[in-house]
């Protein structure tokens, strides 16, 4: 009678796995202790790659323009010229208003002019899984933790969450789960916005709360910086609450530059 020989189980594998895991955990502890060093090192190594890849993708994107017809370009050029003229006029008016606003604030002893520096975004979503941005300004340029980050003069998009020597990590207010207080411009009511990712926020409010489509939400400070505006209110459900959806104006993900406050 023939019997199948049972193959001997290899008992070394669990031992090997255990040893490897112990080694990995040891490496992890070391890496936690030297986290900022590794972060600084990896940012320094990555910035040239990010800049180069952006350059390549921008060059590839402009290839499509070759096939654009001449007539279309002339028409588009004229429209853009008109728009520039209009914007220049608005810019002059805006400059006058800003100056007047600052003068009024300084009369009341609340001059809150903060220095801002322009920075380049070197990495942005969808590269980052955490909805964060990496900018090319750091401690060397006067950037501090919790410095506000703007997409334009009065549109605030997030805060600096970690500063390195030459780079900084910016956490957007719209990062999933991030909570940020905001002031409703029309009524002065304060709400806590919850980040939903991709420059979107939401709040759940009692149905009788006075909010309407297009309402602006501001960052609570002397300077009225816009965080977002209401674009949809869902009050169709049977509950006593309504869901309010807010979107940040401007598209930070298509922007190349940001402004960061450098003094407190």
């Amino acid at each position, binding site marked *: 009678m023939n019997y199948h020989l049972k193959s001997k189980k290899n008992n070394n594998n669990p031992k090997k*796995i255990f040893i*490897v*895991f112990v080694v*990995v955990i040891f490496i*992890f502890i070391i*890496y*936690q202790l030297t*986290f*900022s060093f*590794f*972060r600084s090192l*990896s*940012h320094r190594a*990555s910035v040239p*790659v*990010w800049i180069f*890849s952006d350059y390549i993708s921008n060059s590839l994107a402009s290839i499509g323009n070759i096939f654009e017809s001449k007539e279309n370009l002339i028409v588009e050029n004229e429209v853009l010229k008109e728009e520039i003229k209009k914007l220049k006029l608005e810019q002059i008016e805006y400059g006058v208003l800003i100056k007047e606003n600052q003068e009024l604030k300084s009369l009341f002893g609340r001059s809150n002019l903060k220095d801002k520096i322009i920075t380049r975004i070197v*990495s942005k979503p*969808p*590269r*980052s*899984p*955490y909805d*964060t941005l*990496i900018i090319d300004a750091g401690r060397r340029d006067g950037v501090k933790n919790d410095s506000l980050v703007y997409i334009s003069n009065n549109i605030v998009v997030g805060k600096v*969450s*970690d500063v390195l020597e030459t780079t900084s*990590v*910016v*956490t957007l207010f719209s*990062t999933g789960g991030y909570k940020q207080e905001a002031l409703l411009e029309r009524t002065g009511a304060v709400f806590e916005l919850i980040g939903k990712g991709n420059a979107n926020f939401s709040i759940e409010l009692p149905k009788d709360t006075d909010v309407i489509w297009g309402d602006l939400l501001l960052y609570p400070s002397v300077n009225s910086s816009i965080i977002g505006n209401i674009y949809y209110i869902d009050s169709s459900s049977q509950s006593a609450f309504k869901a309010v959806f807010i979107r940040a104006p401007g598209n930070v993900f298509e922007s190349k530059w940001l402004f960061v406050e450098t003094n407190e």
Partner: protein
Amino acid sequence: MNNIYLRIILFLVIYLFFLVLPWWLNILILIFLTIYFKYYFEVVFFGSLFDIIYFGGEYSYYGFIVSLVFLGVVSLFRPYFRS
């Protein structure tokens, strides 16, 4: 020996992808490689790199822990889905 060279080359390529491609695409590539190779420890390195480069706070464990757990699960179940 060829396998080692392949993994070194792949490591460099994935590192480049990591800096250039969207995070979700990198995760799909890493999942595939973790299943394909036996004990693909590089996944833990890349998981940690997500935290080191992109996380907004002082430090984070998410990438490291998720990649380590995934590697452990794949290693445990490997005999069932690969001959």
